[in-house]
């Protein structure tokens, strides 16, 4: 069976300006004219695949490369090496094909804040070439299932709460009926009820349409509840990849039950400590 997503040795390095520690005026001036760049391995040769209809979770500390990986898959970044395909289409060479199959929700609900939800959705629908009347029905249906009152849909988005904005972002992504849905921390900052609404909706979409989902999150319960398999990423590398149960059994000694949170600390805590970033040598 064809994979929904395949990632072979994918790699992304960013070059970030490095402050030179110096007191000398001359070196400071020199640093301004010729800044020093330092490579950051955001995604470090990742290989994995996601089956159609699977919900694949990615857990990892801040700056571990989750969003970069999502951007590579969503054709917003070019990989430096390796190959990524979405339903057999290469994200670099067949960008246009891939774009038809995917959509994404990012942690910041990126909208024209002055426009209303409906105006923003109309813009998205037109970009994807959706037909006039049809998308409105789909949109109201999705928003209703997400528990958003319809009287809010014509107010400027800047007047809506973060939870509402995020739900509209979810609606925007689902409007185009993507086969692969990329969710980058979709529930960060949502209250428990809204969180549930979004999670239920993701499960329901998978049930209804067999949508494949790649989900990054900092919420361990969410990962446990939604994901079929979970990868734990740290410094751009997967340090573990298994089902939630499989991950738990990794650190569980003599059959005692552990939470995903404990797994996370155990897997990423160790790597943090070994990198020795604290001045006093203790783990953060």
């Amino acid at each position, binding site marked *: 069976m064809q994979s929904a997503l395949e990632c072979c040795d994918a790699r992304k390095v*960013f*070059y970030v300006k490095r402050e030179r520690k110096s007191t000398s005026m001359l070196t400071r001036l020199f640093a301004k004219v010729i800044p020093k760049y330092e490579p950051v391995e955001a995604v470090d040769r990742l290989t994995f695949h996601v089956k159609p209809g699977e919900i694949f979770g990615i857990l990892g500390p801040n700056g571990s490369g989750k969003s*970069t990986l999502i*951007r590579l898959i*969503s*054709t*917003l*970044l*070019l990989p430096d090496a390796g190959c990524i395909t979405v339903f057999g289409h290469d994200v670099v060479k067949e960008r*246009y094909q891939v*774009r*038809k199959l*995917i*959509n*994404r929700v*990012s942690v*910041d609900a*990126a*909208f*024209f*804040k*002055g*426009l209303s939800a409906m*105006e923003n959705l*109309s*813009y*998205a629908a*037109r*970009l*994807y*070439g959706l037909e006039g009347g049809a998308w409105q029905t789909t949109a109201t249906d999705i928003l209703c299932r997400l528990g958003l009152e319809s009287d809010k849909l014509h107010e*400027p988005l800047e007047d809506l709460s973060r939870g509402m904005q995020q739900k509209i972002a979810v609606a*925007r992504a689902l409007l185009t009926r993507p086969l692969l849905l990329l969710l980058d921390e979709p529930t960060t900052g949502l209250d428990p009820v809204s969180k549930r609404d979004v999670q239920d909706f993701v499960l329901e979409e998978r049930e209804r349409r067999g949508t494949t989902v790649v989900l990054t999150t900092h919420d361990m319960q969410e990962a446990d509840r939604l994901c079929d398999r979970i990868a734990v990423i740290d410094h751009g590398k997967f340090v573990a990849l298994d089902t939630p149960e499989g991950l738990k059994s990794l650190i569980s000694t003599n059959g005692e039950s552990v939470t995903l949170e404990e797994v996370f600390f155990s897997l990423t805590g160790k790597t943090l400590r070994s990198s020795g970033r604290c001045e006093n040598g203790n783990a953060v």
Partner: protein
Amino acid sequence: MAPMLDFNRELRRSYALVERNFNLIKRYLGWEVVFMVYTVVNTLTIAFIGLSPDGSGQDRVLYLVVGALLWGFLSVLFHEVAESVQWERWEGTIEYSFMAPMRRFTYLGGVCLFAAAYGAIRTVIVMCAVVGIFDLDLGSANLLAGLIVLLLSSLSFIGVGLMAATLPLMSPEKGSQAAHILEAAILLVSGVYYDVSVLPVWMQRLSKISPATYTLRAARAALLDGASLFDIRSDLLVLLATGAILIPLGLLVFNQGELYAMRTGKLKRSG
């Protein structure tokens, strides 16, 4: 490589940009009115410079008004195209717009379509205000030739605008500033409010490579002296040729800029 473009479908898609921008204008209508009033006042101020205390100098007024109106249109065109990326970057929507399965040509076509419509509306409003206050004699003007000059020069300005739009993709902070400098330089050397012959020789050389110089010369010939299309053919040819070069070049530069941004991670708002 690319399959045959379904022109109608692409046009409908590019309308996404037009509708979105007009929605934004509706939303910030107050500011729109403020800018409009400012532009009208500015144009009137420039026009009054031409008038002598004894009431003579009507042709001087017309000379200035034509310059102000043309520059008004072309600078709006340039601005809207050049700032489109910067602005989407600032709103944070650029990743969503660029992730859509839409050819970049269509996206940019939408940006240009809006820019041209918006520029035309603004220019007509300013023109009405000016005509209402000054008793301008356009009896001998060749309006059709004037319009054609405007259309042809739009091509060049769109081309330059596309290149300027790429700048924020290369350097998020300095890109937009560079676009403003470029615009100011074009205003200085193109003879918008004066004849280019008054400029120092080195500036006159620059004026030769600014498409706006040919626009203004040809438009004034058509609108002030009633020159025919045949009379201004050499300027029209220059404008047509620069447009034919600058638009494909602009698209090419934009494409390269986008690839650069995708390689270095500059599409993102922060970082």
